[in-house]
């Protein structure tokens, strides 16, 4: 099966600033892929590259089987794109906008349109410029879902929305989920945790990981090792053990490649006098924090090394 989105070494530079660095990403058909990362990580740039709004500096990306530079015209009748900072035709009423959009899409579903309008309770005769942010986003959703797109791309769609509106939008998305692939970006883990099937984490233009949520959840464990006597942390801890720390007789770390009993045996072998080992599943937020902090520490260490290696003037 051809992935809906696939990138290879996708890189984007603005002048000397590298915003995205060799991103490899695969979004299978039918997935709800959440691209998360802090502000400024490169999520919006990534989406703009995928939508052919920007052109990559290096690497390539394919969307719906097409190279992104071929994305134009008719192919957008299969893509629904909504962005938090997209300019809408503000002077139009909601009715006028939907009427205007309709002829562009051969697969426009009037019944679905009516359903979305009812579901979102859109004020049809009000101009978009007079709508609240939440209403405007709902109108954008309605105009992007009514033609049953094969791919829905959302750039920070829930930012600044109240929980009620956010839930309404998520609900409408999930109703479409069986027939479409959804790719969305967010800097808020909590809002995507409940429904994303795949997740990718972007930080400072680098993809730290990209995988299925269930695999990710199975892979990470918060490990607590209780020892008979206090110990110092050995220097040769495996790279998959993140954020290791010790307090008296207790050692805690995040195992990023947890494999059940095998991992527990590995722990027992690493420390002398192990009294107890507990491995607890982690919430997504804790996993991300562990990865983010480790990533930042590694980046800082790399930078420090680079500074240290500079020849003295």
């Amino acid at each position: 099966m051809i992935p809906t989105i696939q990138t290879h070494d996708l890189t984007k530079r603005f002048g000397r600033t590298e915003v995205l660095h060799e991103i490899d990403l695969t979004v299978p058909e039918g997935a709800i892929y959440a691209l998360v990362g802090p502000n400024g990580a490169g999520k919006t740039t990534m989406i703009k590259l995928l939508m052919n709004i920007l052109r990559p500096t290096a690497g390539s990306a394919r969307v719906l089987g097409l190279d992104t530079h071929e994305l134009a015209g008719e192919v957008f009748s299969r893509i629904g794109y909504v962005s938090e900072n997209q300019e809408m035709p503000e002077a139009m009423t909601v009715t006028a906008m939907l009427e205007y959009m309709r002829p562009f899409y051969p697969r426009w579903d009037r019944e679905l349109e009516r359903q979305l309008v009812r579901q979102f309770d859109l004020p049809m005769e009000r101009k978009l410029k007079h709508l609240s942010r939440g209403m405007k986003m709902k109108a954008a959703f309605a105009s992007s879902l009514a033609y049953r797109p094969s791919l829905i791309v959302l750039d920070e769609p829930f930012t600044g929305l109240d929980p009620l509106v956010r839930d309404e939008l998520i609900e409408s998305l999930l109703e479409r989920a069986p027939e479409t692939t959804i790719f969305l970006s967010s800097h808020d883990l909590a809002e995507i945790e409940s429904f994303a099937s795949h997740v990718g984490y972007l930080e400072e233009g680098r993809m730290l990981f990209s995988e299925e949520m269930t695999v990710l959840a199975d892979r990470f464990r918060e490990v607590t090792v209780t020892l008979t006597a206090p110990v110092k942390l050995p220097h040769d801890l495996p790279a998959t053990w993140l954020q290791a720390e010790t307090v008296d007789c207790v050692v805690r770390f995040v195992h990023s490649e947890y494999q059940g009993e095998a991992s527990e045996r590995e722990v027992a072998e690493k420390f002398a006098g192990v009294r107890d080992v507990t491995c607890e599943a982690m919430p997504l937020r804790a996993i991300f924090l562990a990865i983010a902090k480790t990533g930042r520490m590694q980046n800082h260490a790399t930078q420090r090394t680079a500074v240290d290696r500079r020849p003295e003037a």
Partner: protein
Amino acid sequence: MRQVLNIFRKDTRQFWLEILASFAALAIYVVHYPARWNVVQYPLSYQQLGDNWMMCVVVVAWWLLIARVVHAESLVGERQFWITRPYEWKSLIVAKALFVGVWIYVPFVIAQMLVLREAGFSPLGHASGWLLMLALYSGVFIFPLIAIAALTANFARMALAVFGSYLAAIACTIWITNRSEVHAVSVYSQGYGTMVPYSHFFVLVVFAVVGGASVVLLQYATRRVWLSCTLAVCLAALGAGGALALSSRMPQREVDRQYPAASSGVANPLQLAFAPKPSNPLFVGVWPSNVFIAFPIDLSGVPEGAAMEVDNMQFSMDAADGEHWIGPWRQLNTTPFLPGTHSPSLPFILSRKDYEHFKSMPVTLHVVLAVTELRAGRETTATIANPTFPVNGFGVCSTQWGEQSQNFLHCRSEFGELPLTYVTAAFSNKPCSGPQPQPEDVRTFAEWTGKAYPDPIDAGSDPVRVTFAESGAYDNRGHEHGTRGLALCPGTPAQFTHYDVVRRSRAYLTVPNFQLPAEVHPT
């Protein structure tokens, strides 16, 4: 096509106010434009604003309309909603072109037809005139505005770009004009001729249309602003270079080419003689770097039924010490000379250095006049009537009173300038309201109007050309007289004689032992 119509409908609905504004501007133009035909009643406020203020209002309204419709689907930026919708760029550009065609070109053509009808002409016909006029508007206003709109994200940026381009164009024009004006010559038009011949000017207009269209096409196809901007700048530079090349081709070589030197044995087309007299003396004027000598001549030998237009002149000198000096061709702005003896004064300009060198010795002075020989052609006699009367092959005329109590003929023609015409009319020194004037009360006066090489359309770019055939400045031998207080009465005839170009040639005058006059310093 479905998409084109959908976008067109949306734009029309969305910008109905701007469309109405441009219609209002055109309506003002149509309603007020005829006021220009009546010089005396032409409101002072209009005169102060300038002749073309109404068209300026229309152009500003177009600017607003073009900005709004192009920026509705802005081609600059990354946040526009339409760029991730299934717009075909070809449909988008056709929809915008349709909008401009329907809401700018069609109303404009209708407005000009109304102006033509109001002026007393048939709005239909004159296909070439229409085509040239629309090309002029497209090249000077519409296409450049569309191109700038396509390269800018909003109206404020567009305004900056328009003013920047306008200033650049003015600077470029001043530079080109200054560069060419030193040796201005008249080849293509009589009197105050255009620096760039009309045919060349239209090459530039067509270039502007094609260039503007290329930039717009590239921008719609690629949405790469830097690429389209580069193309626009290159085309603008190319256009300026072309204008410079076309204008710099005008002088000297062009006169040599257009006015062939007389072969030996061929009689001088004019009799010329150096003829200083108290009423027309040899006179020296001093400019900062040049010396100006008013060189009086007698000019005769124009055959009956002909006229002679002196377009350019050239002075040269041979000094006794063997030194030779030759001046450039210079344009001469005079009315055509009719049969008889005339005493014009030719401006002889040379540098102060050359003047100082040659004034100390007698020289052989050579004067060459580049002349256009004209022959009287079709003659039309019309009877003056109120308020207007048609003149076959000329236009629609009326009589009007000027501010100095002089009565004159005022004519308008459709599309383009009039051919060179000699207008004679009988003036009465009795009021028209009185009894029929006796022959001794009537004097005939005449005036030249039109051009030997008329431009296909008025550079002012409206379809109705206004001509002031004053018929009072000269008598029928070309001598100047006044007509103050005389009246052109209904029922009296006016004669319109077309003069056709026979050929261009040169007339020569040699003055041996000529002594450059000394400067006269004020005491």
